[in-house]
């Protein structure tokens, strides 16, 4: 995924038809599975209504569907209209802005793989990264139910960008925790206690994609 993290262009320009297909990759599936683990949904075998905020192809749909939940996938690349993958019945895809347009308190959890850093782009004077992030996190916080979590896999270009994202999320009320080595940001909605175990995620012994120095994983928890 390194190539994508190096590109500094708006998603509408970068994700053309060809790139949208290339983005359909096995490593993307692994990232989704990890995000779902960090979402830490209750193990009650009842499907949840979940949100996926995406810059990628329709291939997410199959991975999302296999987890048994119902999904609303919001894509911010118009090229997704042209990706001719079979759609899963449990996943609804729509194209939308980071204002989201979802009613309050109806979503049980949210994930986003490699999408949020696009909001940090400032490709012309009319774009203000802080305002875009504020609009996004405000609407996300609003649509999540109490206690719900949002998990972001991000590729910050630098510490400043990382802090920009974290500050924007905490400003609207999220409590944040970042698993730095894995570049996952875990946000909790409407709770005041911090569950430290979120930072550690699940035991990844035997996961062929985990870092060898997993035990030295650097975790940080940010307080309001």
């Amino acid at each position: 995924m390194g190539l994508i993290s190096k590109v500094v262009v708006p998603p509408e320009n970068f994700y053309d038809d060809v790139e949208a297909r290339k983005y359909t990759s096995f490593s993307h599936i692994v990232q989704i599975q990890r995000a779902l683990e960090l979402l830490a949904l209750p193990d009650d075998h009842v499907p949840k209504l979940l949100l996926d905020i995406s810059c990628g192809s329709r291939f997410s749909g199959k991975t999302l569907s296999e987890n048994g939940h119902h999904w609303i996938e919001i894509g911010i690349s118009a090229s997704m209209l042209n990706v001719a993958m079979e759609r899963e019945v449990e996943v609804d895809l729509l194209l939308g802005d980071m204002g989201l347009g979802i009613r309050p308190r109806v979503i049980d959890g949210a994930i986003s793989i490699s999408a949020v850093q696009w909001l940090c782009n400032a490709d012309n004077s009319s774009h203000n990264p802080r305002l875009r992030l504020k609009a996004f996190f405000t609407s996300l916080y609003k649509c999540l139910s109490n206690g719900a979590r949002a998990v972001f896999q991000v590729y910050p270009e630098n510490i400043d960008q990382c802090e920009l994202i974290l500050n924007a999320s905490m400003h609207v009320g999220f409590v944040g925790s970042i698993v730095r080595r894995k570049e996952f940001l875990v946000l909790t909605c409407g709770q005041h206690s911090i569950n430290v175990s979120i930072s550690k995620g699940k035991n990844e012994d035997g996961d062929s994609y985990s870092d060898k120095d997993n035990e030295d994983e650097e975790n940080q928890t940010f307080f309001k």
Partner: protein
Amino acid sequence: MRLITHNMLSSNIKGVVNGFPLRIEAEKVVEKTVEMNGEFLKKMFEKIDWKAFVDASRAMGYTELPEEADSSMLDSDEFLNRFHHALLELHLEEGVLVCPETGRRFPVSKGIPNMLLHEDEV
């Protein structure tokens, strides 16, 4: 797009105060069978705006839902089956979603609503 998604969506055009519910103009509706889960339906019942749901179902050509509903009806298999069918098995493939305040028309193509806003709408 299923009605479970439609019932969650509102128009977020700048200046719009109440952009819910979006009115449906259906050109093509497809039915796809999916396994029913009663526990999920009971949880969704608490979230669903029922009037918006009934109106949307009718716009999709399905008229078997009661005008009003309360949680005691969830004990009825017949009601659950109808609720499940309308919520999760009807798909809007082609049509338009219309903002109730501005009349802005969001196209639905191949089952995918395009809610991307123009620069002056953000």
